[in-house]
């Protein structure tokens, strides 16, 4: 156990986390050169493209140190986004230490700070690593200063490296061995293993990634999951090399995988504790929290004949994404679809992207909504996240909406505009504090719903890209909610209905009306587009009448060609929806409903 180290890498986006991981893996010879590819731990295309890690990945490396001993280094990759902070926490729980990676030219960034705090909360030993020292713009001295000032760490302990050129990689590995503590725990104690992630394997079912804290996991063992109380039989345990490598057991301190006849990732709860069913531990490990969806959106296939494909794709996605929830939904305008729950907007985007790329589906997503708590006059309480299920106004006593604690970190000069933005977004108790000279953290209690509608974009714009944003859920607070309907020539378009705060109703309705007016083609009669709350029209746009859609000439030679064109257009017409007598192209829904982050 003395020769085991478990660590993660904490970094701001772009500071080179994946490249450093790549280099550590290569240095330890865990993968043949010819098999190597960049960002080897990021298995999804989206992760590679956006340079973010969504699904954490883990690898065990064999490193022969300068002391001639061979160590097992468990590199636990962590997702890098606020939506996935519960996953970050679980990953951190599996480590004893962390490399805090800082870009030698960019310096300490807001996200670095936020993640450091998370790591410190888990009592991890920190090793600052200054990366990209090969860059002409590298300013190691300034970065060291920031590490001291902003992070409160001893900069003299920083390891310098360039993950790109490989310079200093061995120093990083030595620092891991020398400065991070080995795990503790008794291999003969009562079994406690933390499930920190799970992967879906089409042949084996769910592969649980675990950190064994106490005791030993062995094949043939009868195990119990302490939160869900489900029992399984261990079929196989092993180490997570780049490929799985079965072993005879996983003892306290080790990180590895367990295959135990679990069918789908959704069958188990990440964060649960595995114990021996015959000789259970008295308590589960601390820190278990159910991943609850907070953002909801309905997903419809562009073309109704893709509904079956969407159903299958969601089933498959769900196998590997425990946080995704979905149930059948239908819309008069868009047909059958699914109401889905997500951990946040990024999670929503990731699911959308994966459906698009991995399953080749074209989709329309309804405007994201939070889940409201609605009190009815008859004393009932309802949870509503779907505007179409919002009860009649007369039967509503009151409503509550989820609030978050938003934290924005930025250079001092943007405090004014960001406070203004928070005020616009109904932020309460907005305060700020200096993290360091010139750097400010602003916190504000604001409705989650306000963040779903172009908040990131506005924040980026008012801080010229320097602001970074994180949030945590706070509580539910009373709100004054209305349902805004969008009407086209008097007919409501159900897919465009939204629940919004009264103050925002008019602006939101107008925004939708304008976008619709821009995207619905003229159709030879006036089209009134209205936003309404109950019977009151609160916004209006009109599309004026005339249009021409007929070619000037059509004689003998034109007929075949023209028919082929029409046939092609007819295929496209499958993507038209009728609302009353108005043809609305699917593209209009996409344009209207797209979040401004796309």
């Amino acid at each position, binding site marked *: 156990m003395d020769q085991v180290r478990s660590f993660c890498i904490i970094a701001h986006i772009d500071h080179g986390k994946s490249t450093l991981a790549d280099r550590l893996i290569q240095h330890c010879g865990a993968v043949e050169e010819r098999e190597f590819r960049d960002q080897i731990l990021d298995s999804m295309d989206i992760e590679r493209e956006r340079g973010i890690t969504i699904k954490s990945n883990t690898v065990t490396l064999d490193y022969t140190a300068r002391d001639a001993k061979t160590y097992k280094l468990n590199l636990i990759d962590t997702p890098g986004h606020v939506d996935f902070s519960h996953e970050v926490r679980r990953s951190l729980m599996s480590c004893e230490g962390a490399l805090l990676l800082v870009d030698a030219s960019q310096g300490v960034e807001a996200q670095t700070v936020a993640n450091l705090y998370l790591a410190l909360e888990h009592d991890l030993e920190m090793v600052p690593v200054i990366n990209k020292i090969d860059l002409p713009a590298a300013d190691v001295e300034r970065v060291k200063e920031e590490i001291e000032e902003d992070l409160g760490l001893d900069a003299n302990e920083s390891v310098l490296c360039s993950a790109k050129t490989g310079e200093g990689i061995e120093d990083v590995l030595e620092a891991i061995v020398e400065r991070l503590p080995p795990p503790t725990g008794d291999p003969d104690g009562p079994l406690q293993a933390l499930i920190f992630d799970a992967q879906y394997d089409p042949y084996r079912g769910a592969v649980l990634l675990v950190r064994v804290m106490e005791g030993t996991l062995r094949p043939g063992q009868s195990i119990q999951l302490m939160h869900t109380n489900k029992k399984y039989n261990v079929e196989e345990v092993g180490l997570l090399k780049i490929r799985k490598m079965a072993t005879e057991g996983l003892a306290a301190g080790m990180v590895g995988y367990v295959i135990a006849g679990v069918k789908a990732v959704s069958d188990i709860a990440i964060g649960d504790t595995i114990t021996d069913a015959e000789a259970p531990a008295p308590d589960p490990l601390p820190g278990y929290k159910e991943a609850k969806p907070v953002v909801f959106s309905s997903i419809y296939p562009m073309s109704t004949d893709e509904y079956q494909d969407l159903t299958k794709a969601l089933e498959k996605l769900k196998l590997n994404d425990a946080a995704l929830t979905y149930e059948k939904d239908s819309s008069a305008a868009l047909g059958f679809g699914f109401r889905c729950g997500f951990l946040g907007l990024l999670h929503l985007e990731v699911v959308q992207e994966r459906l698009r790329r991995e399953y080749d589906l074209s989709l329309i997503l309804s405007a994201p909504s939070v889940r409201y708590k609605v009190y009815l006059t008859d004393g009932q309480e309802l949870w509503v996240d779907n505007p179409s299920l919002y009860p009649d106004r007369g039967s509503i006593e009151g409503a509550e909406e989820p609030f978050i604690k938003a934290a924005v970190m930025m250079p001092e000069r943007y405090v004014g505009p960001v406070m203004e933005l928070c005020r616009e977004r109904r932020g309460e108790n907005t305060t700020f504090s200096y993290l360091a000279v010139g750097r400010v953290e602003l916190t504000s209690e604001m409705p989650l719903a306000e963040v779903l509608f172009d908040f990131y974009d506005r924040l980026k714009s008012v801080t010229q890209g320097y602001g970074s944003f994180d949030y945590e859920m706070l509580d539910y607070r009373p709100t004054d909610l209305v349902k805004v309907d969008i009407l086209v020539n008097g007919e409501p378009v159900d897919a465009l209905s939204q629940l919004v705060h009264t103050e925002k109703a008019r602006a939101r309705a107008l925004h939708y009306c304008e976008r619709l007016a821009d995207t619905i083609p003229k159709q030879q009669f006036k089209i009134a587009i209205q936003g309404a709350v109950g019977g009151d029209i609160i916004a209006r746009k009109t599309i004026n009448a005339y249009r021409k859609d*007929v070619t000037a000439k059509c004689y003998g030679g034109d007929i075949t060609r023209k028919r082929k064109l*029409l046939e092609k257009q007819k295929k496209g017409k499958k993507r038209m929806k009728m609302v009353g007598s108005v043809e609305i192209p699917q593209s209009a829904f996409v344009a209207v409903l797209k979040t401004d982050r796309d």
Partner: protein
Amino acid sequence: MTQSDPDPVPDPDPESGTETDSAFNAGLYVHVPFCTSVCPYCDFAVTIAGEERRSAWVDGIIREAALYPDLSLGFDTVYLGGGTPSSLDAEQIGRILDELHRHLAVDQRAVCSLEVNPEDVDPRSVSTWRDFGISYVSLGVQSFDDRDLALLGRRHSVDDARQAAEILCSAGFDTVSVDLIYGLEGRSPEHWRRQLETAVALGVDHLSCYQLTAHEGTLFGRRVARGAVTELGEGELAELFFLTHELLADAGYDGYEVSNFASTAEHRSDHNQKYWDHTPYLGLGPSAHSFVGGRRWWNHRKLRHWQAAIDAGDAAVEDEERPSGAQLALEALMLGFRTTAGIDLERLHERFGVGLLGTNGDVVDRWVTSGHLKTDGARLRPTLTGLAIADTLARSFEIGWTPTESGSLP
């Protein structure tokens, strides 16, 4: 099909035989690919050629007509289009018409139409055309504004056009038609109104008013593509379209098709109407299309390729298709909604076995309610606003055939 296919005529369709065998109702088209200059907006198969190629082409047309000795079609219209048919020598036109009568079943009373350019019109040429039996002339005026004519690359002047129209109108043709083009950049609706008024004042029997269209592969198309010329927007074009129909209706012309207007029903183009209701037609010459017995084929577009095939004794057919029942029905809608005659619902039912009101009653209702279609006995007719979006109307119907099922057509 291959060029050497000796018999482009398919087996007679038992269900359609009655309509085609005996009656003289088919159209005969001859494509004259020659122009003295090529207009920048034109996407027809045209070329500038000397006397040698022209006379080879005349021989070719006659040889091509002789390739169809067993065609079970009788023709009651002959249409010489182009290109610039009037640029042919009068004798060449006469020889072609004679030979067509010799090789094919052309009715003695068939309406013979000729497209003419103003610069080719003089009292002598006109009287020769009359002598050869041309009864319908279509004059390519395009505009009564010299700046427009320059922009359109036309070789005639406004004076030429007026003079030509006057000569034609007094020469005793059954029908004199004038072609105009609208939608030039930078011209006001008022400007277009004056063009129409000028044509009306000339007292022509028929007008064809075409929206200037930037076709790919034309000089004009390339100008638009590189931003040298801007096409008018949808709204402006719609305004001009409605202006055209309204003004000409007020002047007594019936806009019986999207771009065609006749002072009385007799002056409609009988030949062109065949294209719009699936009447059979045979096309001779490069790029010409034919539609017989539910089969459609088309000739090589380039004069050189067409000529080579014909000179080798082959049909100059480039390709063919046999549209499925669903495809023909889509064509019937697409073509039918272009004309105020609209769709003959009974005929559609007879030919394709589909009652449109039964299968697409909701679509019909919707367009009737919105004022784009009206039912008139057994016909479904577009209104003027419907005519303007004929393609949208055609696309809106769901006709659920399997693609293999074929319809029966003459």
